[in-house]
Every structure is written in C-alpha cells, then in structure tokens.
C-alpha cells in the first residue's frame, strides 16, 4: 500500500514537473515573439516624434537595457502576478479584457463539445460494430469531410443558407440589439444568465444566435470524437471477454453499449479534453465569421491593432488551458485505469 502511494506521488510529481516545463516553454515562445516583433515597443509608447531623452528613459523603464535572461525573468514574474500589460486597443489591463470576453468563447465551445460528444460517440460505436459495411463507410467519409472542412467557409455557407435564405437561425453576434442589457451578467454566458433571470425571450434569442456557430464547431469535433471512438471500440470488440459475454447469452446490444463502451470511457475522456482544446482554437476563425465577441474575435482584432500584449495574453491563456487539459486527461488516466495506475 505504502509503495503504491509512493509510486502515485512520484507519478504526480513527474506530471507536475512536465506541466511546469511545458508552461515555461510556452512563456519562452510568447516572450520570444514579443522580442522579435518588428514594432519598436518604445516607439509604440512614446511615438516617433519623441526626443532621444524620452526614448532612452522609456527604454530603461521597460527594462530593455537588461540582459535578455533578466528580461525573461521579469516577464515570468509579471505573468505570475496576472500582469499581462495594458491593451492598446481597449486601454484596459489585458487580464480584465480576457476575463470579460472568455465566457462567450466557453459558451460556444461547450455547446459544440456537447454536440460533438452526443452524436460522435454513438456514431463511432455504430461504425465499429458495422465494420466495413455501409454505416462504417458513411461514417468514415463524413469524418474525413469534417477533417477537410475550412471552418470559416462552412460558417459563411451556414449563414448564407440558414440565416439569409431560410431564416431558421439568428444572424451574427450573440444577441439582437433590442435584447441588449436586459439581463445582468452573472456567468457571462448569455443563455445561462437569461435562464437565471427568467427571461425566456432573451434566452430564445441568445440560443438562436448560438446554435449555428456551435453546430458548425460541433460537426468538426464530432468527426474527431467519432473516429477515435471507432478505433477504441474496434480494439475492445476483438477482446476475448466480448466473446465470453456473448457466449454467456448476454444480448449483443448490452455487450456493445455497456461492456465494451464502459471500458473505453477513460480513453474517451482524453479525447474529449483534447477536443475542447482544439475547439478553443477553432473559435478564433468561427468567432470572426459570426462576429461572436469572444476570445477569438478579441485576439483577431488585437492582431490588426498591433496590440501585442493582448495577442500574447490570449495565446498564453489558450496555451495554458491546452496544457491543463492535457494534464487533466493524463491524471484521469492515471487515477482510473489500473494498468496505468500500477505501473512505475
């Protein structure tokens, strides 16, 4: 028992170490990007008409005279305090901006993930149990279509078809103007806030805006989830316990959906975590198309305002979430899967 605890602690330590290392790597990259930026950070503050004295003063204030390694250390210290600098575009601290825009992205990505999981897992199971037959072929083709789809283009076509031509969904943005400022922000996720406030009309409108971008992102994650589910299931269905269960007289339905599926959920958690990370990325393009005021649109607008603090802040945020999701899935793996748990 004690040995087992020690082994678990060692594994946890190794995991934490690698997470910290990865995060340091990420900060190295964002720091390097900040340094390579062709825009002179001093001129960005003082303007190009400033005197040499002012220039030198600001140059020192920014710590640019220090060795690079010291500058990097200062950079890390600032990040640790949540200090990402001010955004040029909004003239507010970047962290404040990020906190404000992030819930919109979470709302979008969460619904997309739900769509992907709810349809993707059954699709993958059905494909695996019909290996080589038409449901499998259809699934395979559809997931390749998902992998090949430029998400921004699908968004535009979706808007053209379902909003402009058919009028089934609401247009770009999160809410019609007439519903603005009715519900007080609690979570920052409009659908949830509207429900909390009991504003059914606002909820319906917000959902109408949300459903198309979420479905489009959801389709892309569906492709990945279904494909991974299929390959995990194929692995299980070849095992002898499946044969034993069938021989015992259990219904094939039960064997597939309870026994085999029950054995792959740990792997599925990993896939779902990674999917969520890639959804945050996909949000940059989707939000641009749908004028969705989340992290992606914020980063895109910052890019064109040459607002480097904001861009790097957003990169760090998405990167950190990515890394944490990776760690979380490793952790779940280590905790629930006895094979992984008893090693090492």
């Amino acid at each position: 028992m004690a040995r087992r605890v020690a082994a678990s602690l060692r594994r946890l330590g190794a995991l934490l170490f690698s997470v910290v290392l990865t995060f340091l790597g990420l900060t190295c990259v964002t720091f390097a990007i900040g340094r390579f930026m062709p825009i002179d950070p001093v001129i960005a503050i003082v303007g190009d008409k400033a005197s040499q004295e002012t220039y030198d003063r600001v140059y020192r204030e920014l710590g640019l005279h220090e060795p690079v390694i010291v500058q990097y250390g200062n950079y890390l210290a600032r990040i640790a305090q949540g200090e990402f600098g001010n955004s040029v575009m909004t003239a507010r601290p970047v962290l404040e901006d990020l906190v404000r825009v992030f819930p919109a992205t979470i709302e979008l990505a969460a619904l997309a993930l739900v769509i992907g999981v709810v349809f993707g897992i059954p699709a993958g199971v059905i494909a695996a149990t019909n290996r080589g037959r038409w449901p499998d072929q259809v699934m395979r083709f559809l997931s390749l279509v998902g992998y090949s789809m430029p998400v921004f283009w699908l968004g535009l076509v979706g808007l053209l078809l379902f909003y402009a031509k058919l009028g089934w969904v609401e247009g770009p943005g999160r809410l019609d103007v007439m519903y603005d400022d009715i519900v007080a922000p609690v979570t920052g996720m409009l659908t949830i806030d509207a429900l909390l406030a009991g504003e059914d009309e606002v909820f319906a409108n917000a959902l109408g805006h949300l459903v198309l971008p979420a479905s489009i992102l959801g389709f892309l994650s569906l492709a990945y989830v279904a494909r991974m589910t299929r390959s995990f299931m194929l692995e299980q269905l070849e095992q002898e316990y499946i044969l034993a269960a069938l021989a015992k007289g259990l219904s094939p339905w039960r064997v597939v959906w309870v026994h085999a599926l029950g054995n792959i959920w740990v792997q599925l958690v990993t896939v779902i975590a990674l999917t969520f990370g890639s959804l945050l990325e996909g949000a940059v393009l989707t939000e641009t198309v749908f004028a969705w005021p989340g992290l992606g649109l914020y980063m895109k607008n910052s890019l064109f305002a040459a607002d480097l603090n904001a861009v790097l802040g957003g990169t760090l945020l998405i990167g950190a979430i990515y890394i944490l999701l990776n760690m979380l899935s490793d952790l779940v793996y280590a905790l629930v899967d006895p094979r992984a748990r008893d090693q090492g």
Partner: protein
Amino acid sequence: MAMRAWLLDPAPASRRQARLGGWFRAWLAFRRNTLGMVGLAIVLLLLAVAAFAPLIADPASALTQTLENRLQPATWAHPFGTDELGRDILVRVMFGARITLTIVVLVSLIVVPIGLAIGLPAGYFGGWIDAALMRVTDIFLAFPRLVLALAFAAALGPGIENAVIAIALTAWPPYARLARAETMTRRRSEFIQAAELQGASHLRIISTQIVPLCMPSVIIRLTLDMAGIILTAAGLGFLGLGAQPPSPEWGAMVSTGREVLLDQWWVATIPGLAIFVTSLGFNLLGDGLRDVSSGRG
C-alpha cells in the same frame, strides 16, 4: 502481361525487380480502395491545374481588374463568375492552386528534416538524449497550433513566407515522434547489428538503414497532414495574415467574398470549395495509403 508476371514474380532476380514488384503490389492493393483512388484523382488534378495554369490562362488575368465586369454570375466566359474587381474566379482559383501547393511543399521541406533530426537520434541512442529531445517535442506538441501560428504571423508580419514558417514551427513534433517510434522498433534488428559489426558509423547506419525504413510512414503522415496545413494556411489567409491581396490565395479570396456573400454568393463560396475539395483529396489519399500500409485493404 509479361510485365505483370515479371513484377509479381515471387522470386525476383534483381533488387530493382523486387523493389518495383513491391510497389506494384502496393498499387494493386491501393487500386481496390475506392475512396483512396478518388483522393488520388483529386490530388493529381490539383497538380495538373497548378502545372498548366499559365498555359490555360494568362497569368496577368488573375490580377487584372476589369471593373465593368465586376460581380458577374456564372456565364460561359466566366464559368465561376467574377469577383468584386471583375477578375475571373476560375482563373484565380487555378492560380491559387499554385500558392497552396507552394505552401504545402515548403512546409513539408521544413518539418520532415526537423522531425527526423529530432526523432532519429532520440530513438537510436535512447537514454538521456531521448528524454531531452522528447521533452522538447512534447512541449511543442502541447501548443495550440493555429493560435501559435497566428501569434508568429502577427510578430513576423503578414505574408506567405511567414505563414509557412509559422505553420512549420507548430507542425514538426508528430514527425519527431513518428521517426523515434520507427527507429526504436528497428534499433535492435539483426541487420543493424550486422552493419555495426562491419564498422559502419552511427550517422551512416541512421542515414542508409533507418531513414529509408521511416520514409513510408513519414510520407503517409505527411499526406494526412496536408489537409491540416492547407486549412491552417487558408485560415491565416482568411484572417489577413497569410498571402496578401491581390494574390489569389484561396483563404484571402473567401475573406474578400464575405462582403458580398448575401448577393453574390459565388465569390466566397467557390474558393472555399476549392480549399475543401483539395483537403478532402489529401485526406482520402492519405487514408487509403494508410490502409494499404497497415494491410487492411
């Protein structure tokens, strides 16, 4: 027929016959894979279009503005209509194929050598070299690709070269892992030991014995990756961080077509379709190749 018999000879008389025979068998297996063949056809079509575009249409016409023709719907003269500056969309899509191909070729030329340079020594020497190199790889693997490419493109300035660098910097880690895994499975093979006993240097063993064995899986992986590279490049172009106007890059074309989407749908839709079909072609081809190589036809 004699050719076929020679290729399928179970006892090839020369190394060349054996190698050609191996390829021919792979082709026979691949030919049965309908989706894979569709993918191959799409990729070949893309190559042909890119190669012959200047022969079919005048390169200047992809850029020349003829404002009296702007936003024309499809006609015989302009099968895909014209864009907001009166340029023929079909011609622009054809020249866009060259840009897309340039991007994927350049990215491949960067990521494969980097991936091999990191993965081969890691798998071959093992130990702390392996641990250190793989740690670096894992760090890069844990980065969000598009976001990082975006940040790079923003820092280096928009443009096709910078888009290539940005994509390549985030695309190499899977190749390093692949090369490492392939190397580790061969490392203890008898033919490697034989080469070592003959006094071959590590560099020689890696480059003459191991690299050729890694190449098939690297090529399959690359084919499957093409779609991702094309989509990332198009995404950067769409955001205005890739190829700059008036260059007929597909993502940038979708972006400009966006303004007239509701009235002149073809301007944004056609180049987007080109991105989709091209990515799908590479994905189908890669999927088919993978099936053949793993022996499940």
